[in-house]
């Protein structure tokens, strides 16, 4: 009887200790990983701080827009502060060729731009490529078929060269590079963005 009891206790204890060790090992691994991560974060953040100091004074005190076409993020920043960060869709880089003629590449231009115009309830003027893409005949420039409502959301910001930052009905595609070159923003964030910027705001696209 005593033997039985001893065996019981022994097995239970071993099982518990065994489990404990396994957990200890994973926890130890986690702790090591955290330590490594902490070091990388500290290094990067201190590098960033010194870079901010170097460019200080250039950014000014007005909010500005930053568009990261690699990661499909849009930021509104004031100096080193982030006022708004939102997922967007930028140019897909796809090519389109008209039979026996023109070619288009759908990319978002990179560089330094300014917001030239703010528009409410923008109307999309359908360019030639939109018809070519759908295999439709291209109508004359002033044709009513060219003017489409609702495709650009409630607000749009022109940055020149017919490129716009606008709302979109294709909300599920945000975060992916799928546009024809325009910058698509989710409708709620577009409203906030519209309120934060003014004509003349600088836009950095890279």
């Amino acid at each position, binding site marked *: 009887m005593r033997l039985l009891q001893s065996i019981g206790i022994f097995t239970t204890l071993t099982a518990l200790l065994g489990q404990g060790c396994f957990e200890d090992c994973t*926890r130890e691994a986690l702790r090591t990983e955290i330590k490594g991560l902490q070091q990388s974060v500290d290094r990067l953040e201190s590098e960033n701080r010194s870079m901010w100091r170097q460019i200080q004074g250039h950014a000014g005190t007005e909010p500005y827009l930053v568009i990261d076409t690699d990661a499909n993020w849009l930021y509104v920043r004031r100096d080193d502060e982030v006022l708004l960060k939102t997922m967007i869709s930028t140019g897909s880089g796809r090519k389109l060729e008209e039979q026996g003629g023109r070619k288009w590449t759908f990319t978002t231009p990179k560089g330094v731009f300014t917001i030239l115009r703010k528009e409410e309830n923008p109307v999309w003027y359908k360019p030639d490529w939109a018809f070519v893409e759908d295999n439709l005949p291209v109508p004359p420039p002033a044709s009513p078929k060219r003017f489409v409502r609702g495709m650009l959301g409630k607000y749009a910001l022109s940055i020149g060269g017919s490129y716009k930052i606008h709302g979109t009905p294709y909300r599920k595609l945000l975060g992916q590079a799928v546009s024809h070159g325009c910058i698509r923003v989710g409708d709620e964030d577009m409203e906030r963005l519209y309120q934060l910027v003014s004509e003349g705001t600088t836009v950095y696209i890279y």
Partner: protein
Amino acid sequence: MQERIIVKLRNVICWIIAIVAVAGCNGQRRAAEFDRLQKQRQELVNRLKTAEEEQRFLAFIKDIYATDKRYLVLNTHSAKGSLKVGNRVLREFPLLLDGCRKPDIMPAENADAYVLPKGRIQVIAKKENPAWYKPDWLYEKDMTSPPPINSPERLISGPMGAYALFFGGGFVIHGRPADAAPPMVTDHACIILENDDLRAVYNLLEAGSVVYIR
């Protein structure tokens, strides 16, 4: 005998219950710590991602603000200009080459001023709301006597748009007249840029910046 077995059995059961209870407590504590570590890890992963994204932006901005690396390339054959940093094109824009019209009556000694320079030139000065200095021969053409050389009457604001970049030798990069007037009769060679392109160029180039014209 039977009683003793029952007591033993009860002891064993008590032991098991105690061990399970302790183990359970311990397990819960371990699980909580594990969760905490996981959360800490996730938080760091997010911060790392943000820092990496920020660094990409900062590298781009630093390039832009490194004045010595910014330059302008103006191609007069294709009427296109580009603002560059190293190999990176920051902006491309059209050039309006026939904005500054040569007047019919033009003193021969000033004719050189209409030739666009070629090759590498440098910005000498830049000016916001530049005033145009009306030369003697334009007064003479209008049969009026020119005011003294340093008279403020000679300075006319508006025809050069909002900004101008000067290079010496009569050549100027400037904007359209504010009131969209027809091309002005001028005393210099110029390349006109649309207002938003000009603003970008003006903001990013400094005195000393290099411009290549071909």
